[in-house]
């Protein structure tokens, strides 16, 4: 057991930023805090880093309570969204900073700095000032700076959000590979589900100061515990079981006769030629066709007051649908799940 967060609570005035949050993170694990803006991800990260004081709760590392330790004494590496490289120092001196503050011998610092520069592939940029580096390079230096003092835990607050799309995707893989090579326990804050899915061992979905669900990307996508998680990760068609909706068979055990909101992922919707019949088969009109290369998105309008359904198809069948065509959509019972009881 490595990092343990116990019942951490934090208020800003009347606002509850963290509401008794508890979480355990194993050594070497890569965890993402995922959630909409303002849900408390950064605040939780800052409490862990020692930059913010929680009013109650504990942060423990290998059984040792850190909550009274200032950030200086925690030895956690932090990478900030805005890089926060010291503008008056070269890349190399930025990396050396943490070691200088610990008064390490000079030749050891030099060796470590070279090591770190090689780690992030910026040996040639050692003597440049931050203002002379690109955004991606600055973020790599920030990463090297955070890693140089050999921290116990690496904390990243939306490290990629200020970068161009292309650089962002490259750095994602780079950071993940680096983390696995070093085996360092890492927490990354993000509001980008794709980022979380591609990088994390486990994802912590947060909402309004609470943890909504913790699990691997596959778990969260396949078995969302709440409607919030279901809607936040991937896209989801919601099917309230009332009004115009025909009764659908589904695999989930029924909840004492209460009406349920069912959900189905777009890629689980199956399409058949008009006239096909069977369980959970509903006729619909193709209202919109969006070609996205490897797949095609279709908006299907079943009419009689039901809301349109989003479907995704891959492969050869995708080409067969045109705007206004009549089709039958199948919502397979084993793919339908209850996302909320009413």
């Amino acid at each position: 057991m490595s990092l343990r967060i116990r019942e951490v609570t934090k208020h800003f005035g009347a606002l509850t930023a963290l509401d008794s949050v508890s979480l355990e993170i194993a050594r070497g694990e890569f965890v993402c805090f995922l959630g909409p803006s303002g849900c408390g991800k950064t605040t939780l990260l800052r409490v862990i880093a020692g930059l913010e004081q929680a009013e109650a709760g504990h942060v423990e590392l290998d059984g040792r309570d850190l909550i009274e330790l200032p950030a200086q004494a925690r030895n956690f590496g932090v990478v900030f969204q805005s890089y926060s490289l010291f503008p008056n120092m070269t890349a190399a001196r930025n990396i050396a900073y943490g070691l200088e503050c610990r008064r390490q011998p000079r030749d050891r610092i030099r060796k470590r700095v070279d090591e770190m520069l090689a780690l992030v592939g910026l040996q040639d940029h050692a003597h440049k000032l931050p203002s002379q580096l690109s955004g991606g390079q600055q973020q790599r230096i920030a990463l090297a700076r955070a890693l140089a003092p050999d921290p116990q835990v690496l904390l990243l607050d939306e490290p990629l959000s200020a970068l161009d799309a292309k650089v962002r995707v490259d750095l994602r893989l780079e950071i993940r590979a680096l983390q696995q090579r070093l085996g360092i326990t890492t927490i990354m804050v993000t509001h980008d589900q794709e980022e979380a899915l591609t990088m994390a061992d486990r994802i912590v979905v947060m909402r309004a100061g609470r943890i909504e669900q913790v699990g691997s990307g596959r778990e969260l996508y396949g078995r969302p515990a709440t409607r919030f998680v279901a809607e936040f990760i991937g896209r989801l068609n919601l099917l309230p079981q009332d009004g115009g909706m025909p009764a659908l068979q589904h695999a989930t055990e029924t909840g004492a006769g209460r009406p349920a909101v069912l959900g189905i992922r777009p890629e689980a919707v199956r399409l058949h030629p008009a006239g096909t019949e069977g369980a959970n088969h509903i006729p619909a009109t193709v209202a919109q066709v969006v070609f996205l290369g490897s797949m095609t998105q279709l908006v299907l309008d079943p009419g009689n007051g039901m809301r349109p359904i989003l479907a995704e198809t891959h492969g050869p069948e995708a080409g067969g649908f045109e705007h206004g065509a009549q089709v039958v959509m199948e919502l397979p019972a084993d793919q339908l799940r209850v996302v909320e009881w009413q």
Partner: protein
Amino acid sequence: MAIADTASTGIRQPRIWQRAPVLIGTLLVAGPLVVFVLWPLVAILMRSFSTPEGFGLENYASVLGTARFMRILTNSLDVTLVSTGIAVVLAYGFAYGVQRTLMPGKAVFRLLVLVPLFAPSLVQAQGLVLLFGRNGLINRTFGTSFDIYGYWGIVLAMVLYVLPYAFLILSTALAVADQRLYESARILGAGPWRIFRTITLPSSRYGLAAAIFVCFTLVITDFGNPMVIGANYNVLATEIYNQVIGQANFERGTVIGMVLLVPAAVAAIWEKYLSRKQFALISDQSKPLELRPNPLRDWSFAALCTAISLAILSVVAVVIYASFVHLWPYRMTFSLRHYNFDVQNGIQPLWNSIYISLMAAVIGVIVVTAASYVIEKLRSPVTRGLYFLSILPAAVPGMVLGLGYVLAFNNPSNPVYAIYGTLLIIALANVYYYHAQGFLIASTSMKQVSGSFDEASATLGGTRLQTLWKVTLPVIAPTLVGVAVFFFMRSMVTLSAVIFLITPQTQVAAVSVLLLEDRGATNQAAAFSVCIMATVVAVLLAVRGMLWLLGWKHVRLIR
């Protein structure tokens, strides 16, 4: 590991390691501010109420009730309002020309208008007397009997004296603008005058208020110029001097000092009030202003700026001229004899000025940097109080602060008495007299050093002191050079804060100018003025050169 004391209160209290640096920093900054700003003011206040029979209002009654005082008060307000009005309007035109037109020679104009900042604060009256006085160049050349002494002399001197200060503020206010606003106005069919009234003027409102405040305070508290050119036209500032130095009547001096505090304080409060209502006109989406050529506009402003620059320059030039002639205005042949300084203490006052200014530069930088660090970075319940103390001197006339030093520290039982009568106390008087401006420059820069650097440093194991030393100070170093130059320049030229503190041994050059002028030694006074200007310019050039060698560009030295 101590268990957090959440059990008793439910709320975790800040630990001692968080409080100690805040406490120590606060004390280090608050202590000197209390001693060198608050104490002298309290001393003045107490003295103004002290009578032979204890505390009472007698001093006030004996001063405020008199017809003489009412006349002086009216004189002061009259001179102040008129010269402030004229100076601000002219400075606005000058700043508009520099920032919002494409007139030729902008860089030169910018420099020329700032020349008075390099000269002792009474150089305007000195120059005007040389030009328009009884023995002035004009009367001698044209055989006229033009009389500059009195009201108009003071107004003219004051306008020239405060113009550069107003220009600096207004130029900053007019420097930024949002092109999109001007484009939309033009598309909506607004003419130039309408655009000026509805966009330019409102967006520079805060700068205008600040300029009015600074000019008002400078004029009403200046006594060098009225001493030289005022003749029988008395104002509050000269009256304090007369009471304290002339008649050794400290009680009356303090009462007038208290009166002088009122308008300055009112102006300060008014300015604060206006600046609070200032809304952000510039956002990060703003487009910088693109100026288009407009020959009529550009040449009109070039003409205006030329006229103003000539007025400013002629005053300084005639002083330089006078310092090099045998005996103004009788023997106008070249001579260096006034640079022998065979008067009083010889050249010593100039050296005193230089020592004092160097001390003020060093101490001033340390003091205002510490104040801005503690106020911006170590928040605590007393932060607001510290901020108030830091900017309080802006509302205190120099003579009042200086008089406060005399009353508070010229007393063997006071610990500060140990340095009373030394150059150090004069340097300290200058540091605290200019504390508000120095502090605001430093703290603006400190604010730009984002708190995220402090946090980044903390997570890397840096202590507060390491962060300050390795990150914060190096980042703001260029600004601090500017602050040092600011303290040096002002200390070289100021009269008012030091006039009551000098002794024959610690006399400063600006006071020498005043005393020599008073004795009718016009040429020597001029030579002293020239020495002050030459020193300031030499230091400015030296600092520029040093910055150039260091590769630091865009450092603003003249404030």
